[in-house]
């Protein structure tokens, strides 16, 4: 038997077929993506840095809105949608920024780039983690808001719209935060880049949620919902195609 060098590739328990060594070790797309998600989630659940920051920020923003707007009972229904989405947008920016800068600071990004996977795996992994963080924060903010303002937000259709909006926001946000993390101005630049481009998500989500909360006809909700889905599909596709160009060489 030929002496093979002791590299990771030769671990006997993982190597079933000596032929096409590379193919046997190239993890599947989904597995690799989930690995990244798992890494992010387990790192976060150890410290709760990110989620706690996003959460506290969100609650503070909602309190500020209480004083900024006269949220009396009548006005509340028409304004809830906007207040929620403004909060999610700002808290989302916090999360996106932090998530990417932590990768850079800890040198994880370089490690990920060296891994034998498609670059887009990194994109999907990060995007899903960012989405999960946003959803966790939203899951806490919604009941709190419900309680504080006596508005029933526990509706499946509303949650569905919030999910779709968060997907679009996280999709574009992950791509843009990858870019902004590599500039001189870093965190400051992300909202400037993100908000104009994510406008359709915010607008459509607000419009759809508003329609649901004020009991509008379904057709009024359907149109923004359709546009939201269109946006999600288009921008996830674009991000997937373009991520290679945006990650450090």
């Amino acid at each position, binding site marked *: 038997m030929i002496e093979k060098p002791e590299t990771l590739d030769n671990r006997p328990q993982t190597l079933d077929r000596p032929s096409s060594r590379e193919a046997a070790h190239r993890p599947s797309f989904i597995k690799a993506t989930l690995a990244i998600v798992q890494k992010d989630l387990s790192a976060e659940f150890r410290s709760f840095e990110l989620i706690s920051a996003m959460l506290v920020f969100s609650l503070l923003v909602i309190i500020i809105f209480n004083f900024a707007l006269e949220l009396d009972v009548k006005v509340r229904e028409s304004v809830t949608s906007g207040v929620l989405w403004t909060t999610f947008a700002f808290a989302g920016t916090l999360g996106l920024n932090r998530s990417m800068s932590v990768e850079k600071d800890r040198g994880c990004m370089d490690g990920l780039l060296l891994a034998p996977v498609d670059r887009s795996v990194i994109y999907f992994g990060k995007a899903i983690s960012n989405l999960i963080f946003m959803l966790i924060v939203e899951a806490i903010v919604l009941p709190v808001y419900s309680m504080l303002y006596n508005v029933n937000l526990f509706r499946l259709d509303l949650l569905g719209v919030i999910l779709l909006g968060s997907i679009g926001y996280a999709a*574009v946000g992950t*791509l*843009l935060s990858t*870019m*902004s993390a*590599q*500039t*001189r*101005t870093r965190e400051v*630049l992300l909202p*400037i*880049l993100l908000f*104009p*481009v*994510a*406008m*359709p998500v915010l*607008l*459509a989500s607000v*419009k759809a949620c508003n329609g649901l909360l004020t009991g509008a006809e379904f057709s009024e909700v359907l*149109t*923004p919902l359709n*546009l939201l889905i*269109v*946006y999600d599909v*288009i*921008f996830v596709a*674009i991000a997937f195609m*373009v991520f290679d*160009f*945006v990650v450090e060489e």
Partner: protein
Amino acid sequence: MQPKPLALKILDIASIIALAVATYLALVFAPTEAVMGQVQRVFYFHIGTAWVGLLGFVIAAVAGIAYLITKDARWDRFEVAAVEVSTVFFFITIVLGSIWARPAWNTWWTWDPRLTTAAITELIYIAYFMLRKGIEDPEKRARFGAVYTLLGGISAPITFMVIRLFRTIHPIVIGSANANQEKMSMTGDMKVAFFFGLFAFTVIFIDLIWHRIRLGSLEEKVEQLKLKVSM
């Protein structure tokens, strides 16, 4: 810097003449509109600059894609030129729109689909310059710029479609029934001013982009000289 090619010199003169003629047509030749008075004349420049602004953004997105595919720096220079010139002209569009709105609808601004999308689009392209400014490596700058023009170019029309869903004070075309009527019932002379305005601004647009591309080449030459000398 290379000497100005003859074609560019001719284009310069053509642009100036076109602008002068367009101005004359808009200010003197076209009849005064009955309902709003003289302020309606800004419409001719408003549409001309809007057309050029939007054209430039589309061109920029295409140039961005071309750069990503070919990695040829000339596409990047073309893209920067298109965005810069368009940003300037689109700014003129927005302000002229506001100036027109004030006497016509008694407000400096309305949140109707076109104006709002225009403002957001303008912000996208200002963000574009801030993005480029924050990157030192020219190759990365070009790559990121290209990606952002693509994102911006696709999201802006979607923004427009979404805002159209929101209830507006005004009906759709250029936001007011008055304007709608004007567009439909433009007299022959008005149409002349209108179409010539579009033509004139297109000529000016091409002229300025050409100049800006030359400027970009000079910028690159200087950057390369700096690198060589500092070694």
